[in-house]
């Protein structure tokens, strides 16, 4: 410790080196002058006086040199000398250096890459002032004995906003929708979010250009205004600084652009256009949970305190409104936490996996260093004996470790840079805020910190093992006795066991995720997942009653012309396409005794209490060709036909699960249904057919009962329409399709994607996790195999003499091969057992990421053990063969 303190003091003084140097000159000059004066007084001649003074001083340069030794620059000189020496030593062992640096680079690179994702997604604060004071508020509903958290109903929001004592500002946000926007620029689809009055007070971000909404913009009947994101403004509005005549058109509505937000602000959900929520009339139902609510905590109020406050208000509202509201409480979650809550666990698992890989990499390098230290022990002992201090030798070894680790760290940052680019290219939709991810200074700093910690750990570990023993015994024992290296061997064995165990855990994780992914891909989603493309259309809201009919006609025309495109085999359309195409609304319908039983909402309400007549289903409208184009099989009855006229009997097709749950043991065909609450059209449906199940949201979510109306009859629901063409996804066909839409309506923006892409995106989160864990575990397996190989090889090299003696004494080479293989097998076995114990612990952590695979999937576990076994065998086989070829005479002579 004293050495360290000394080192610190020298380091502190390092900057003063130059001062002291010139000071010393002056000081010595002064000294000699005084001596000369004294000599003069004693009666010497001037030249003699000076000469005697110099003689007495005894060598100016030597004095300076000795004094200089007492101060600083030497430390840095020493250190850079150590580094240079370290580099030279490593250059003499290029294989060792290269393997070590690559291994460390791999470990540090993996850790840095995953850390950069964790940093960008989970740690980096949101781009608001004091972002930790912003919370997302949910109302907690209790309905039918079930409690769940939900968006706010507007009247509840209004009451909570008025009564709370916790928030300095509170705002509600309508759902973000992709609307078609036109104007004097290229038609496009923009993410539009209606925000209420205090939105900009909550986020505390103001437009960088123009203004926020004024009170006069925030009322029913006001001239519509809009604020746009910086990215949208640059991309579509030509970054025009003069906002005065800048308008956006969505259908008949014209929005005056009044402001542009600062770059990077796109809350919520990558919003491009914010509009005042107050343009629409207020909602009056306390069970219409349509608004996300965010709030800014007052100074000194914690999120927990605000929850108590909210619960108090909720209790009051429940007393006041009874069954009209379902709200019985509320919760507030810090916004960053809410945004990232689904990504948190998988990311931390990935970080853990990267940490495992790093430990395995360090263990490998440590093992390599040990092997080298073994052969350098004599060199180090000699140096110690010649008077080098232990600190000196430690510093030397530390310098070598630093050279290795810093090179490894630099390489790692390079790997991480490529790695992050590759990760981002996977575009996992389950990970939010990916735009924040990159190799920045924080990541570089962390990578460097990891390198230094690794360097110090490796350096000190090596020193302790290399210099910790009595000098004389080291110098004399050489290769002759085995006793000294037994501890060393044990440490190396322990390192390998650790590596095998960690690798097994990683491989088990990868195995389970692979099996899950295969299960996911094996699930029949109920429709074609390739060989087609989807045209996503959004028609603007319009007060014109003729507009929906016009949209239907346009859709029809597009579909007819699309059917003529070469390669297209079938065309159909639906309002909400599976795999992330829409809202997926569902609702409650009523089974009717006769077609005209219910003609108004009042009739509806009258039988609402008769639960046996109610049912819940997804509500979709589709074209007649939809089921064929999607490959959804017709189970019974018929689908829609061109003869189902808009003013004729409205017909419906239901999914098998709806038939089974609502009408078990009955034939639903011919039944009459009232589902007008979904689109405001109270004409009854007659069920004409049953079709196959569809996994809509993604293939991992089980299908739910679904109801299809005919889009020509239910025109109100067709504001969003997805046309799917099956048979080809060639770029020419897609280009033709885009041209067709543009010809028919030049103002309608076209968004086209292939079915394969849409499906790929729906499994992208899973693929992301799998690829990462997979790559890590393969890397871990390679490293662990190398580690095992290294240890067994070293063992054979160390015991060559012993093997020779054994052979001379009559052991067969098979015995010896078995002995070496046995050692490798033993290490692998112990590692496997330890790893399996760890894997049990792992499973409880990753169980949430599994799909259709048991916690103890025998295929995955057997596969992993097989892999480890094969790796261990490979790693031990070569050294074993070497042992078997030992020629006794040569070994005995080798000393």
């Amino acid at each position, binding site marked *: 410790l004293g050495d360290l303190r000394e080192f610190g003091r020298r380091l502190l003084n390092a900057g003063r080196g130059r001062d002291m140097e010139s*000071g010393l000159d*002056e000081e010595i000059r*002064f*000294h000699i002058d005084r001596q000369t004066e004294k000599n003069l007084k004693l009666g010497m001649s001037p030249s003699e006086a000076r000469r005697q003074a110099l003689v007495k001083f*005894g060598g100016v340069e*030597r*004095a300076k040199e000795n*004094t200089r030794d007492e101060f600083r620059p030497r430390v840095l000189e020493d250190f850079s000398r150590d580094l240079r020496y370290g580099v030279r030593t490593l250059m003499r062992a290029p294989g060792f250096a290269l393997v070590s640096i690559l291994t460390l680079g791999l470990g540090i690179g993996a850790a840095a890459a995953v850390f950069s994702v964790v940093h960008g997604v989970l740690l980096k604060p949101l781009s608001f002032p004091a972002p930790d004071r912003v919370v997302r508020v949910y109302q907690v509903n209790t309905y039918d004995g079930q409690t769940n958290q939900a968006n706010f109903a507007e009247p509840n929001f209004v009451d909570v906003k008025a009564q709370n004592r916790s928030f300095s500002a509170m705002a509600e946000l309508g759902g973000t929708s992709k609307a078609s926007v036109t104007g004097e620029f290229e038609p496009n689809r923009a993410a539009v979010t209606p925000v209420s009055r205090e939105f900009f007070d909550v986020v505390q971000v103001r437009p960088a250009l123009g203004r926020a909404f004024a009170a006069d913009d925030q009322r029913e009947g006001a001239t519509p205004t809009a604020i746009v994101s910086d990215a949208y403004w640059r991309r579509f509005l030509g970054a025009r600084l003069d906002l005065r005549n800048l308008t956006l058109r969505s259908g008949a509505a014209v929005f005056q652009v009044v402001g542009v937000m600062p770059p990077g602000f796109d809350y919520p959900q990558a919003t491009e256009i914010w509009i005042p929520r107050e343009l629409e009339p207020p909602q009056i139902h306390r069970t219409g949970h349509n608004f996300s609510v965010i709030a800014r905590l007052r100074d000194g109020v914690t999120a927990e305190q605000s929850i108590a406050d909210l619960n108090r208000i909720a209790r009051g509202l429940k007393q006041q409104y009874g069954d009209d509201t379902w709200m019985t409480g509320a919760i507030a979650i810090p916004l960053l936490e809410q945004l990232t809550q689904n990504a948190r666990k998988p990311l931390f698992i990935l970080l853990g996996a990267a940490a495992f890989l790093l430990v395995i990499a360090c263990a490998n390098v440590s093992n390599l260093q040990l092997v080298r230290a073994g052969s350098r022990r004599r060199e180090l002992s000699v140096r110690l004996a010649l008077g080098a201090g232990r600190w000196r030798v430690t510093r030397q070894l530390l310098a070598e470790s630093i050279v290795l680790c810093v090179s490894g760290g630099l390489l790692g940052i390079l790997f991480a840079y490529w790695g992050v680019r590759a990760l981002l290219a996977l575009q996992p939709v389950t990970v939010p805020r990916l735009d924040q991810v990159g190799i920045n200074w924080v990541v570089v700093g962390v990578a460097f910190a990891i390198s230094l910690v690794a360097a110090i750990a490796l350096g000190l570990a090596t020193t302790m093992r290399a210099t910790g023993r009595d000098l004389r015994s080291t110098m004399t024992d050489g290769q002759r006795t085995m006793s000294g290296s037994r501890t060393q061997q044990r440490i190396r064995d322990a390192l390998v066991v650790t590596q095998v165990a960690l690798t097994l855990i990683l491989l088990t994780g990868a195995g389970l995720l692979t099996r899950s992914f295969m299960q996911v891909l094996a699930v029949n989603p109920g429709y074609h997942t390739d060989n087609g493309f989807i045209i996503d259309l959004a028609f603007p809201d319009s007060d014109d009653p003729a507009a929906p009919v016009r949209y239907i006609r346009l859709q029809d025309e597009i579909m007819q012309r699309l059917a003529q495109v070469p390669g297209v085999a079938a065309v159909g359309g639906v309002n909400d396409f599976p795999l992330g195409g829409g809202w997926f609304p569902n609702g409650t319908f009523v089974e009717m005794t006769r077609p005209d039983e219910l003609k108004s909402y009042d009739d509806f309400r009258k039988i609402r209490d008769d639960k046996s007549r109610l049912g819940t289903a997804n509500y979709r409208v589709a074209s007649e060709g939809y089921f064929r184009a999607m490959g959804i099989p017709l189970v019974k009855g018929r689908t829609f036909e061109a003869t189902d006229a808009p003013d004729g009997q409205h017909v419906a097709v239901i999914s098998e699960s709806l038939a089974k749950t609502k009408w078990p043991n009955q034939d639903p065909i011919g039944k009459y249904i009232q589902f007008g609450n979904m689109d405001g059209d109270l004409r009854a449906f007659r069920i004409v057919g049953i079709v196959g199940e569809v996994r809509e949201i993604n293939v991992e979510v089980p299908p739910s009962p679904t109801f299809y109306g005919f889009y020509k009859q239910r025109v109100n629901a067709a504001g969003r329409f997805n046309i799917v063409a099956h048979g080809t996804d060639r770029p020419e066909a897609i280009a033709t399709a885009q041209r067709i839409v543009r010809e028919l309506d030049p103002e309608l923006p076209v968004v086209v994607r292939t079915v394969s892409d849409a499906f790929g995106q729906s499994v992208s989160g899973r693929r992301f996790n799998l690829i990462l864990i997979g790559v890590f575990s393969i890397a871990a397996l390679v490293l662990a195999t190398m580690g095992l190989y290294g240890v067994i090889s070293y063992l054979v090299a160390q015991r060559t003499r012993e093997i020779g003696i054994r052979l001379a004494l009559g052991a067969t080479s098979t015995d010896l091969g078995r002995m070496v293989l046995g050692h490798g097998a033993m290490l692998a076995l112990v590692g496997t057992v330890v790893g399996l114990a760890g894997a049990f612990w792992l499973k409880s952590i990753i169980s949430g990421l599994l799909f259709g695979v048991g916690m103890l999937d025998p295929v995955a576990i057997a596969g992993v053990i097989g892999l480890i076994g094969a790796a261990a065998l490979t790693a031990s086989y070569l050294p074993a063969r070497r042992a078997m070829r030992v020629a006794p005479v040569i070994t005995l002579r080798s000393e």
Partner: protein
Amino acid sequence: MARQKGDVLQGTIDMLVLKALQLEPMHGWGITERIEQWSESVLQLGQGTLYPALYRLERQGLIRSDWRTTENNRRARYYALTAAGRKHFAEELSHWERLSRAINLVLQTRTA
């Protein structure tokens, strides 16, 4: 290397420097002079060892230095004891006294 009379034993020079500074701050030459004087010219500090010792003691925090002007109007670095230096000197002194007494006892024992 043969040891000459007047060479200062290694390790004792630090003690002598601390002792010389006990009364007042001094520059390097002054320290040499004082030690020579007190030792009746027996002890002559090799200058090659004085300055390293001064820098070492300063680094260890036992003395501190600053530049002052001498009576002849020249700039010189003056060294002064710190509190730690005083304490250290007291310890060294008692240690030295014990040691030298012990050595004397051994050397003066009559061995017929």
